[in-house]
């Protein structure tokens, strides 16, 4: 019996895999960015279907919208001179890479299906954490890792600003 949950799941899976496929194999960069946005957004919707709304919203806001904006800014800044930069890659190289990756997928799938991975401990009826629980957990038990990530992000922001200001001021020559 087909249920709505399975239909919605497979629709989003179609968007995830299709978006990822076209993001890699599309010829034009703008199509690749659009396909990547569809892929990231659909991954966020799959997280919604897993009943993880906080993680799904983070995935959609940060990964889908934010990164797509960054990619589009990069395209706007590099579009004028870079229209002919994309070269067709070797057919044999593509076929060998595809075969190796397909073999890897098959091996990992066989391991998960028949290996030592145990499905014991699955608990779908657990209590969902509220926003207060997540914030309490984030700032008490995971305070130091998030502080570390915040420091890295701040240093990356400062470094990116310094690099861009050097480019604008012409301090870095054509070496």
């Amino acid at each position, binding site marked *: 019996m087909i249920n709505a949950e399975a239909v919605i*799941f497979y629709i989003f899976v179609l968007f995830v895999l299709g978006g990822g496929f076209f993001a890699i194999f599309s010829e034009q960069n703008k199509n690749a960015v659009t396909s990547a946005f569809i*892929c990231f957004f659909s991954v966020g919707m799959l997280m919604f279907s897993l009943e993880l709304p906080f993680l799904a919203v983070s995935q959609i806001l940060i990964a889908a919208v934010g990164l797509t904006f960054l990619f589009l800014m990069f395209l706007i800044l590099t579009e004028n001179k870079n229209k002919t930069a994309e070269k067709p*890659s070797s057919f044999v190289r593509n076929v060998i890479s595809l075969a190796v990756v397909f073999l890897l997928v098959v091996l990992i799938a066989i391991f998960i299906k028949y290996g030592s991975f145990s499905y014991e401990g699955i608990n*779908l009826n657990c209590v969902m954490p509220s926003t207060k629980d997540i914030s309490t957990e984030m700032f008490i038990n995971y305070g130091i890792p998030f502080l570390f990530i915040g420091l890295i992000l701040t240093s990356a922001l400062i470094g990116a600003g310094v690099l861009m200001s050097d480019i604008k001021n012409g301090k*870095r020559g054509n070496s």
Partner: protein
Amino acid sequence: MEGFLHIGLYHFMTIAIILFAMGILGLVISKNLLKILISVEIMFCGITLNLAALSVYCDITHFEGGMLALSIIMLASLLVAIGLVIALNIYKFKGTTDIDDIGELKG
């Protein structure tokens, strides 16, 4: 047929593996820096989805995998932001984002 209709951990892990493999494939065959960064981000999406599914199916509190996935989302965005700045620098100095053209050594 029943296995396809009852969505479980195996389905989410399969999608995550395929996404990760797609990212590896994109890393291998792409010659454009932008597509390489998109491929890395697709790999991170697969890892995040895997952690989210494991946290739902194997963790009572949903905290461990969720927090780790949130950290990975932040670090992936950081990686892409820095990578795009580096790619923009390369484009300003070399005039291209093709890795075959920018990989040539001097001398």
